[in-house]
């Protein structure tokens, strides 16, 4: 290959055609032009190859050289990923800033891992030990929260020799050597390369039996997602997709969060970065950034890198999963990724399917969502990757191809609703059109943790809301005055649930995160009021009398008034309901 060369033949936006003395391999990474821009081979024809370039192509000209790396597009995995912010092809943005200033320049070849950072490494193997792919041979604290376990690359196995003692090392230092069965020697460093489009192997998939606890009432109670599951958050603009994603990134009980800002706003990424370095994780009291990796391809960054950013993120997630961590990926938004596919497909002059999207859109979505799961790794640890993808449907219309195709591969659907958002009901998750298919799998977890109560009250809440939505149809036509008292009570109690339970204020310190114990007790109090009021009504006392006690409005405020660490106040509330309503009955008779 030495004397053979490749050169640029044509340029059409991010798509460059390359000719030369030999044929490039599909999906290999190349450097394009004198500035060595990042590119990936996306098509090979008889006399030329098609390369998509991850950077702005203006200024390129035909005849400039193209360099073949001989390997697919890969990301370097190792300690130091945590707390960092990357672009779509895993270049650290803060290092880019150091080299090119405020505006992002082209052709910067920066490793995802800082080569000069020194880690305090504890070596976990000794000379003569046998290692298989996925085995842990060293450990280091990479942030205050995360213990990084250095794994043997899945394709390797053999016996270790020349093991260095525990101590301070950089990511590229050799800390041992691995001799394979055929006798080839590989130096072991703290890092490894992995092609982003290839799922990392695991031993077996395990059933998903644990929910991802998020502290968001409507999610944890009504529409939970399992650890290792997939959820989609579709919604028109302004419905709160991003805030929902931020809330989940902040409060969910995953060990590691990977936040992919895919074609979204620059200011939002800055906000996440600022906020996460200030906010403390409720479990550990350490900054949330210590367990977060950010990937930012803002909407004005090159479109091809947007397509890659999703894969970069999930590859990092799988790497941490293999260490035995529970990882949650928040992708905001997968529509931008699909649009990037469409844009590149158009430039490649492929035949479009629905709405100009390429025909392979569903298979690409499937490939991505299938990389989620609760796995037993090669080294027998258990870890999971949960994917929560936001969708930005055109015109808020859920029948468009990205939403429809995504629905086939996810099992929790949080439908954001424009009219709820207009009324500033947040999270604007519509409780009628949203669903989860995980509840049956998670039932036993809820049962073991809280006894049978949780499921019982959950279905009571759900059916009250269902009945309310039916009654509201009637109210819309003839007004609420004509409803009989028992139905008025349903409407009134559902209002308490809507405002006091489903609605949650992300900017209120008490309400932004609610432990699941409080969620259960809140449900119990609200249902208690409903059931107790039913008894009152049975004695022919009108609902208006119960309303006059102020109990309904008081319950709406318990989310603010009762602190998360003093749940006994909720039991007091229950007593108060009993007293007040008993008094009503007494006065009536």
């Amino acid at each position: 290959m030495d004397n053979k060369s490749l050169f640029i033949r044509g340029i059409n936006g991010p798509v460059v055609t390359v000719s030369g003395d030999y044929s490039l391999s599909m999906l290999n990474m190349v450097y394009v032009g004198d500035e060595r821009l990042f590119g990936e081979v996306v098509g090979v024809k008889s006399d030329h190859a098609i390369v998509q370039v991850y950077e702005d192509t203006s200024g390129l000209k035909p005849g400039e050289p193209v360099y073949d790396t001989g390997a697919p597009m890969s990301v370097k995995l190792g300690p130091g990923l945590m707390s960092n912010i990357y672009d779509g092809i895993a270049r650290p943005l803060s290092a880019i800033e150091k080299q090119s200033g405020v505006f992002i320049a082209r052709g910067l070849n920066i490793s995802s891992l800082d080569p000069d950072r020194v880690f305090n490494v504890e070596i976990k193997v000794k000379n003569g030990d046998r290692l298989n792919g996925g085995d842990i041979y060293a450990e280091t604290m990479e942030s205050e929260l995360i213990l990084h376990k250095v794994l043997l690359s899945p394709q390797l196995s053999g016996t270790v020799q020349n093991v260095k003692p525990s101590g301070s090392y950089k990511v590229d230092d050799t800390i041992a050597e691995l001799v394979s069965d055929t006798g080839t020697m590989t130096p072991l460093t703290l890092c490894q390369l992995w092609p982003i489009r290839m799922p990392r192997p695991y031993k077996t998939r395990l059933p998903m039996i644990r929910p991802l606890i998020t502290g968001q009432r409507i999610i944890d109670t009504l529409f939970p997602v399992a650890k290792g599951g997939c959820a989609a958050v579709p919604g028109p603009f302004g419905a709160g997709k991003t805030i929902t994603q931020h809330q989940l990134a902040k409060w969910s009980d995953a060990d590691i969060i990977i936040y992919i800002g895919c074609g979204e706003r620059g200011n939002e990424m800055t906000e996440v970065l600022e906020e996460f370095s200030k906010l403390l994780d409720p479990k550990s009291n350490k900054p949330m950034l210590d367990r977060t990796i950010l990937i930012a391809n803002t909407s004005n960054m090159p479109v091809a890198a947007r397509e890659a950013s999703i894969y970069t993120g999930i590859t990092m997630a799988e790497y941490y999963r293999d260490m035995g961590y529970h990882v949650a990926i928040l992708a905001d938004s997968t529509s931008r990724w699909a649009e990037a596919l469409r844009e590149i497909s158009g430039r490649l002059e492929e035949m479009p399917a629905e709405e100009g999207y390429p025909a392979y859109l569903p298979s690409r979505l499937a490939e991505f969502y299938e990389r989620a799961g609760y796995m037993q790794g090669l080294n027998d640890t258990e870890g999971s990757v949960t994917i929560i993808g936001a969708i930005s449907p055109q015109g808020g219309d859920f029948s468009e191809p990205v939403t429809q195709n995504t629905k086939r591969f996810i099992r929790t659907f949080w439908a954001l609703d424009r009219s709820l958002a207009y009324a500033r009901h947040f999270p604007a998750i519509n409780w009628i059109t949203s669903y989860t298919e995980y509840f049956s799998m998670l039932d036993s977890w809820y049962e073991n943790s809280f006894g049978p109560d949780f499921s019982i009250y959950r279905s009571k809440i759900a059916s009250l809301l269902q009945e309310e939505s039916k009654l509201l149809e009637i109210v819309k036509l003839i007004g609420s005055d004509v409803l009989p008292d028992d139905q008025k009570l349903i409407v009134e109690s559902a209002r308490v649930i809507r405002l006091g339970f489903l609605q949650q204020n992300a900017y209120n310190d008490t309400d932004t995160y609610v432990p699941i114990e409080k969620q259960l007790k809140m449900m119990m109090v609200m249902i208690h009021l409903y059931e107790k009021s039913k008894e009152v009504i049975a004695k022919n006392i009108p609902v208006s009398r119960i309303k006059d006690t102020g109990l309904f409005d008081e319950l709406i405020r318990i989310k603010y008034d009762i602190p998360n660490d003093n749940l006994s106040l909720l039991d007091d509330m229950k007593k108060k309901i009993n007293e007040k309503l008993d008094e009503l009955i007494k006065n009536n008779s």
Partner: protein
Amino acid sequence: MRVEYVGLSEINGPLIVLDGAKDVTFEEVCEITLDNGQKRTGRVILIDGERVVIQVFEGTRGLSLENAHTRFVGRPMEIPLSKEMLGRIFSGAGRPIDSLGKLYPDERRNINGSAINPVSRKYPRSCIFTGISAIDGMSTLIRGQKLPIFSGSGMSHNEVAAQMVRQAKVQDDDSEFAIVFAAMGVKNDTAEFFRRDFEESGALQRVVMFMNLASDPIIERILTPRCALTAAEYLAFKHNMHVLVIMTDMTSYCEALREFSSSKGEIPSRKGYPGYLYSDLASLYERAGMIEGTPGSVTQVPILTMPNDDITHPIPDLTGYITEGQIVLDRSLEQKGIYPPISVLPSLSRLMKDGIGKGYTREDHPALSNQLFASYANVQEARSLASVIGEEELTDIDKKYMAFGRDFENLFVKQPPEESRSIEQTLEIGWHLLSKLPKEALDRIDAGLLKKYYIEEEENAIRG
């Protein structure tokens, strides 16, 4: 000495094709001289070997396969920049058209700009008060934000934008400000309206205008916002000014893009717009913001007229996904004689949450605006019910909502074009209106604030 190519191989709409061109770079600018001495400018948009496709900014009228001489200038599309631009008028492609002569550039920049590194951005937090209650109170504009006005043909978006420019104020700041105005495919009257308004308010010396009027070539229209934003970035980040960019009308811009795309033979996506409309719009809107370590800022107020008042049309739809909120104007309010006809429910400012409240405006601002939104949403429900069963049949609370809705529109939203309300006045009106609703109905406000600001019934009656 650069090579000059004589003749063309193909002309197709605004595009020309040249064969046998060597050493041409992607997006390079070229000069085309006709036999009669006319000069045109073009830009390379596709290279396939020695075949080059060029878009001609001024259009291809009068070009033939023989009469054109093409010379490549060796650099991408750049515009000259200098602080002297203030007070000047330029064409859509950045050439001075005000007969004040050439600009002596301090530097030249590529009009495409580069993406701001998210790490280098400063999160915007300081409000710009516009003196308009519906904006300041409900969808506060923040410096460094991109907040479009979604309007329809024939509505008073220009008046609203002009009022915002006239009254825009920032507390505790005396940095220089500048306005960059980009007219894209608007009628001469509209451009003239803004020019006069800037003149009357004495701001004309602080304005840079880029004019691509309805009759100007569409390729130039695609360059107009890029030239304007390059100028804005230059003033903001080199000269530390606070720049407000008004771009009107984004719909014309998108239509120019569609026309151009179809002449290139690209595969269309929704409503014939190109599949990259989102990326293209983002490359404009994302050029707003603030940068850590520099005092300047670029704030954008793009104006777009929604075709057929349809907010789900691709242009407002994609815009809304990129910008940090939107101000929506409503035709039925306009018809009721309410100015500014701002429809508060679909309007939104995403950056507002971090720029208002204690330490920024007033502690009650977040809760108050939240409650006004919620209560006004109830008004809509009450109204739809009233249209079925009549207002007399409504419950007491719904009747109160009906009254609240009328007051809200007439006292809070409506205000004269020359009135500038302080934020305190705006909040005061808000409490005054809310206090006509029973306390129990105000479920978005916590008890402490309610106690402090709620005006009890009698007192309210006296004041009202």
